[in-house]
């Protein structure tokens, strides 16, 4: 936006500013020491490690792939049914099903490195020790550009929510990871707290590079005929467009108080306008989750459409959007 003003005042009177071409738009964004070629990343747990969606397009075109949360041991997850569609959203209770760190390192990681995909490794655990061990095993691995500490998985038995619901445990787990991590670390936070800013502050104080906001909100749906919960686990995480205003609010609140803390924004983002909205609220990158379920091409379409949207408005740098909301 600043370029637009400058051009108008400078040479604009004699010859009109040549229109900005989409190819000239700079999509690069920087979060701490992490530079991404564009701000579009995947939300953990909605993209696997990329192989499935790579059947449709080259997933290395995304800013980064945030992989499904890795735990030290394999997790079988929760019983089915694990999903229920709700108004403009969906509930899920997967329970972090994943084949464990060893298998991820043996099967998924080499594939991602070979394909040149920037990897953000989402890690989860039941104990602080488990986070530490997984982070240690990821030390110095090429291709991993950041760690996302999933400290907000909505079920208590997954360990997560116990951490991100309070400042003390958040500080403790993040500072433990920081002691062993060799790459930027992002703390993924739950919106199910009284004051998300204080949790973000605790993560920042513990040394986190930035925060990923928001994880799903805990929700519930009941089948009125059978009178049973629609999810086998009873409750589950709500995602999709239904939660976007909450996510925008959380990003904005954190960015207002901690303007230097990089934010990966997420929660119901689907369109270019949604991506821009998250960035204006204060996000430097935007993760796309449930939209990939609705459309396997969703992330790529955003990478393609964002430069067109910015060029039409004369915005040369995507990063200039961050925190641009006018209050």
């Amino acid at each position: 936006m600043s370029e637009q003003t400058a051009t108008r005042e400078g040479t604009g009177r004699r010859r009109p500013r040549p229109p900005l071409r989409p190819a000239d738009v700079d999509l690069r964004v920087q979060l701490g020491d992490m530079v991404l070629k564009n701000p579009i990343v995947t939300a953990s747990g909605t993209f696997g490690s990329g192989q499935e969606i790579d059947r449709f397009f080259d997933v290395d075109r995304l800013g980064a792939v945030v992989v499904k949360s890795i735990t030290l041991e394999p997790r079988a997850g929760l019983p089915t049914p694990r999903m229920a569609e709700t108004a403009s959203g969906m509930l899920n209770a997967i329970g972090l099903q994943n084949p464990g760190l060893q298998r991820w390192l043996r099967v998924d990681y080499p594939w991602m490195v070979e394909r040149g995909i920037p990897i953000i490794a989402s890690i989860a655990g039941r104990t602080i020790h488990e986070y530490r061990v997984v982070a240690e095993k990821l030390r110095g691995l090429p291709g991993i550009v950041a760690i996302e500490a999933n400290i907000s998985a909505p079920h208590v038995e997954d360990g997560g929510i116990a951490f991100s619901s309070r400042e003390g445990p958040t500080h403790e787990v993040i500072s433990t990871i920081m002691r062993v991590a060799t790459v930027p670390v992002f703390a993924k936070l739950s919106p199910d707290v009284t004051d998300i800013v204080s949790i973000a502050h605790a993560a920042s104080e513990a040394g986190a590079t930035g925060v990923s906001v928001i994880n799903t909100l805990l929700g519930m749906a009941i089948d009125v005929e059978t009178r049973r919960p629609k999810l086998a686990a009873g409750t589950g995480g709500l995602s999709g467009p239904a939660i976007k205003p909450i996510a925008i609010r959380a990003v904005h609140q954190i960015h207002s108080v901690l303007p230097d803390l990089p934010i990966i924004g997420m929660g119901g983002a689907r369109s270019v306008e949604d991506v821009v909205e998250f960035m204006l609220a204060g996000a430097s990158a935007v993760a796309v989750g449930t939209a990939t379920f609705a459309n396997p091409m969703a992330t790529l379409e955003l990478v393609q459409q964002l430069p067109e949207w910015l060029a039409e408005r004369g915005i040369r740098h995507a990063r200039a959007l961050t925190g641009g909301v006018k209050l």
Partner: protein
Amino acid sequence: MSSFITRTGSTRTGGSAGPPFQGRDSGPLRASCEVLQYRKIGTFHSLTFVSPEIADRAQPGQFVTIGVEGKHTVLRRPFSIYQVSRHGPWAGTVEIIFNATGEGTRWLTTRKKHDLVDLVGPLGTPFPIPRQNVTSLLVGSGYGTAPLLYLASVLQQKGLRADMVIGAPTADQIFNAIEAKRLSATTVFTTEDGSLGEEGVVTDTVARMLDTGRTGLVYASGPMTMLREISQLAMTHDVPVRVATEEAMACGTGVCQTCVLPVERKGQLFNLRSCVEGPVFNGAKVRWDAIGALPVMDLPDQDPDDWDEL
């Protein structure tokens, strides 16, 4: 179009119509497909779409997911493929059969010729086709019969004998009896009210047919309780069985882990995805009693590539 599922053509700002499909030279793809025909077959609904690529790539047992429009829907709906045409006047078309049970499927019944609908497919594993000359027994129920007719046509092209048992509560819920008769050596219908064929359910008839010892392979498609019973019958008769399962799905592409079933592979138990490792599974390896129970998963010390079970 649903507010959540963007349509590529209309969201492109470059003005061009966009590519005819999104995807690679093989595997699943996404395309905006023209409706060629909507019709009712008995109590069932049928939609035929123009998609030369999906028609070319699809095999019996695979499915497509459709972006449906609804007030507040966000997810695609999966449908097994009834038939594809690669030649003749209907070349390059894909047909699905469904019941109108919810908001998404009701919207589909209002599609008219020339409407555009968002398809992703073909997805999932197909029915394996026997390499030896064996007689197959195809057991279908409700709209689950549709993919079996597709399978029967492929078996017929390969000169393989197929018997069919098709069941439903009433005669009008038997899907396409004429087509079933045309594609199989022997066809038995069962209805619970006796309005067509034998009175009863498919399992009684299947048990009797397996007793004859003629069947070398069983395929089944229909409700999960029926698949479980047919799998157990096949196992007691020592006949291989392949079932097309139906589990609730969110993504259909393998990333959400919603549609998992407990399945044994090489002596280990895994929660396998119906949309990638399935929907066609070895019915003898599905742990039917463990579906919906607290799952267990063995340490996977094998790679998926080693999981070739056939």
